[in-house]
């Protein structure tokens, strides 16, 4: 119930309340402030519209590598000093890279926003990437890849499925980058990336918390507003050509249990006020796995007992194309093939018979409640705003989404299941577990352990 559905649920959360300020500075930097006075704290996030989808072959992973280097010093702030100053002020900080963006954040007491802005503005313009520190940090990133991908069979499966499902679109590349690209990456690659994308007119500042919007905007003008606007490279669409038939891979990796991942290309949210399908697909994901006895759990895990876990997920908020996904682990003695047939049968049942009013009402009740619950997390509210803005959606899309989801009908859910979850659009990946005690594979070609 946790995994894939969490994506859907996360996106079902949109808050209509609390005042929002949304301004663009003269240099093109966007500033969004959400006032929330529940606690004397704030979160400040700088989002750059540059993620792994903006990379080129040969230097995959550079967006994330640059994220690491952003903590390695500027012309006036020595390496490590950024983190040290934030920590000394009681702050928590981190950064994250996705396919669509790179974002940096600080969570602190409300009166310490100025320090965060001062440091962020400095590294937006004055980063220093030394060969020496790069050489160490690239090793750290390769360890990160080993930890989070190479030694996690389900992660390897996901990575290889993306590389298969997308043939042209850059979503085919892993965020962390291919190991060989990391091995041959240079400090100059990181410098080039920084020079290309780190400019105020490619950034959005999101501040949420016990702050005054006019004061935040004034501080933003003072620190970010003075940085010069720069010409950004032209972004080309790189649309994925239509899929012409089912695609299927097998990944052999040391593991105890098989694992199945299915993905269908699906529409993303473009015109939030007019679109119907992205909302209907979110409801569909909820019907399939939004609670412990939603369709996948009830049929596959509880009744047929053909799976020990199964979930569905769909994220319509993205710069690139969207996907609808289902993952499942077969029960002991059950084959992946049988599990896949059972999943297809569940989809076919919705395509044929639709969903019940009770199921529709249940998912909507969860949407409405989740909209309240998400207000308990300041950080999450800021995250959502950044996520929407990066995807090119206005904050109103976030505010209006609960109403849009409530308007979805059962027949719309059936229609999107028919239209998008078709056999000729499916991409299937199977983890074929190999013995854990086999002779060690060798690291001459690190990370390669699949066959597809």
């Amino acid at each position, binding site marked *: 119930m946790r995994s894939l559905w969490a994506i859907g649920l996360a996106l079902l959360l949109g808050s209509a309340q609390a005042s929002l300020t949304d301004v663009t500075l003269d240099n093109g930097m966007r500033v969004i402030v959400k006032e929330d006075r529940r*606690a004397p704290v704030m979160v400040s996030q700088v989002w750059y519209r540059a993620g792994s989808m903006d990379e080129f072959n040969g230097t995959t992973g550079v967006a994330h590598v640059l994220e690491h280097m952003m903590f390695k010093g500027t012309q006036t702030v020595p390496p490590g000093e950024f983190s040290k100053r934030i920590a000394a002020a*009681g*702050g928590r900080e981190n*950064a994250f890279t996705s396919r669509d963006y790179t974002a940096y954040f600080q969570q602190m007491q409300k009166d310490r926003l100025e320090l965060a802005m001062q440091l962020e503005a400095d590294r937006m313009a004055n980063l220093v990437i030394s060969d020496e520190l790069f050489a160490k940090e690239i090793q750290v990133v390769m*360890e990160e890849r080993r930890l989070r991908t190479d030694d996690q069979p389900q992660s390897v499966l996901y990575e290889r499925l993306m590389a298969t499902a997308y043939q042209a679109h850059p979503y085919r590349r892993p965020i962390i980058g291919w190991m060989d690209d990391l091995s041959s990456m240079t400090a100059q690659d990181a410098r080039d990336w920084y020079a290309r994308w780190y400019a105020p007119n490619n950034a959005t500042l999101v501040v949420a918390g016990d702050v005054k919007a006019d004061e935040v905007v004034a501080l933003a003008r003072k620190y970010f507003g003075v940085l010069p606007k720069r010409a950004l490279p032209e972004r080309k669409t790189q649309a994925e050509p239509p899929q012409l038939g089912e695609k299927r891979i097998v990944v052999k990796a040391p593991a105890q249990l098989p694992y199945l991942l299915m993905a269908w290309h699906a529409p993303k949210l473009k015109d939030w006020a007019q679109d119907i399908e992205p909302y209907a697909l979110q409801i569909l994901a909820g019907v399939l796995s939004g609670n412990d006895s939603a369709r996948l759990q*009830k049929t596959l895990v509880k009744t047929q007992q053909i799976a020990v876990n199964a979930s569905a997920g769909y994220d319509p908020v993205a710069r690139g194309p969207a996907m609808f996904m289902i993952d499942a682990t077969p*029960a002991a003695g059950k084959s992946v093939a049988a599990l896949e047939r059972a999943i297809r049968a569940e989809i076919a049942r919705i395509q044929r018979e639709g969903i019940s009013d009770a199921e529709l009402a249940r998912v909507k009740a969860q949407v409405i*409640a989740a909209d309240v619950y998400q207000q308990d997390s300041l950080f999450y509210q800021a995250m959502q705003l950044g996520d929407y803005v990066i995807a090119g959606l206005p904050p109103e899309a976030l505010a209006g989404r609960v109403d849009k989801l409530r308007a979805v009908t059962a027949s719309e859910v059936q229609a999107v299941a028919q239209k998008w979850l078709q056999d000729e659009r499916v991409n299937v990946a199977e983890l074929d577990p190999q013995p854990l005690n086999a002779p060690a594979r060798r690291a001459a070609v690190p990370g390669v352990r699949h066959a597809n």
Partner: protein
Amino acid sequence: MPIKYVFVLRFLGMLLLSLPLSAQAAVAIQHWQTTHGARVYFVESRELPMLDVAVDFPAGSARDPAGKSGLAQLTHGLLDQGAGGLSDTTIAHRLADVGAVLSGRFDRDRAGVTLRTLSSATEKNKALDILAQVLQRPDFPQAVVKREKQRLIASIREAEADPGEVASKAFYRALYGTHPYARDEAGDPAAIARLTRGDLQAFYRMHYSAPNAVISMMGDITRAEAEAIAQRLAAGLSHAAPVPALPKPAQAATSDTRIAHPSTQSHVLVGVVGMARNAPDFFPLFVGNYVLGGGGFDSRLMREVRDKRGYAYSAYSYFMPMTEAGPFQLGLQTKLEQTDDALKVAQDTLRQFIAEGPSEAELIQAKSNLTGGFPLRIDSNKKILDYLSVIGFYNLPLDYLDTWVDRVNAVDVAAVRQAFARRIDPARLVTVVVGAGSAR
């Protein structure tokens, strides 16, 4: 799982293992006992129209009877899979119908159930009805027991592919020997396969009793309503006496366990039996560990292992405060060929810290971060609820919040040095390395 691919974080944040709390930002905790002996902790907050409830019992895996490793976990997992004559599906649907979220949490000490619901009357009452059934009348249906045993065994098998999981299990075994903390939280597949419905019912009756219960509530209700809810939740529980104390763990002899695994990295864990949640030197150890390996990029381990040498993405240390002494654990993951080098750097960093303690400047930095960051620890209902549960479960003083910042500030270099020297004997470290070959 795909979801983890949404982001690639710069570093793995330290787990919030010690749940410190503190002063100035007054969280007004109300505390009482129900007539059945359940202890209640409540904070009223009317800002959001929602209510969080947690009910915890000393029913973690340390309570597994001999030969029945996995019984506690299975019992906990079965609570909401059929109760009061309602099927697992009815329970799940009724909760979802009102937008309520029922979750479980489970570790070696504690088995708990949490409920998040809207505070509007209809939704809240329906959600609390289900919570009461799940806590008071789990049915443990025969067919569901069989199914969930298979699922639990499958999850244990699946984790065997993860070198980090393998290392963690081996670490607890090496550290705790015959103590109940040695056993894995999820249990032993062979023992699970033998468990019966009767085992679950007996375990449930003995552990999920009112005198064992800690009820925490946070949110949009009055004191009177909180009293009524607590009374109702406790009323249907058994009257079984409080569980006996766990045995005191002995300090482990030094050992070095190497386990082969087809991974590209070695997972290295080093540690000793550390401190209990109510240890008198909790604060010197907690604050001192910020400097050693708990303070992210402020910590020596991160600096030595990651920043200076690029050996690992994550290098950390922590004390896990538990009912009895939990582990002190230092960990890192590194590619196979540099395992011994990275291990040596970590050991040297630890030894030097024990010998010398933190510098004055390091300690000031640690205290600045911890005290300055205090408001972030209580900035949501969820976080406050978790703190209520910890205060209740571990019998921490009610003024714990009010004294926390002062107690952090009171820690000095000498106190840290003495506490670390007392707790960690560098000659008696337990080491576990999981990775291909396992050669030294």
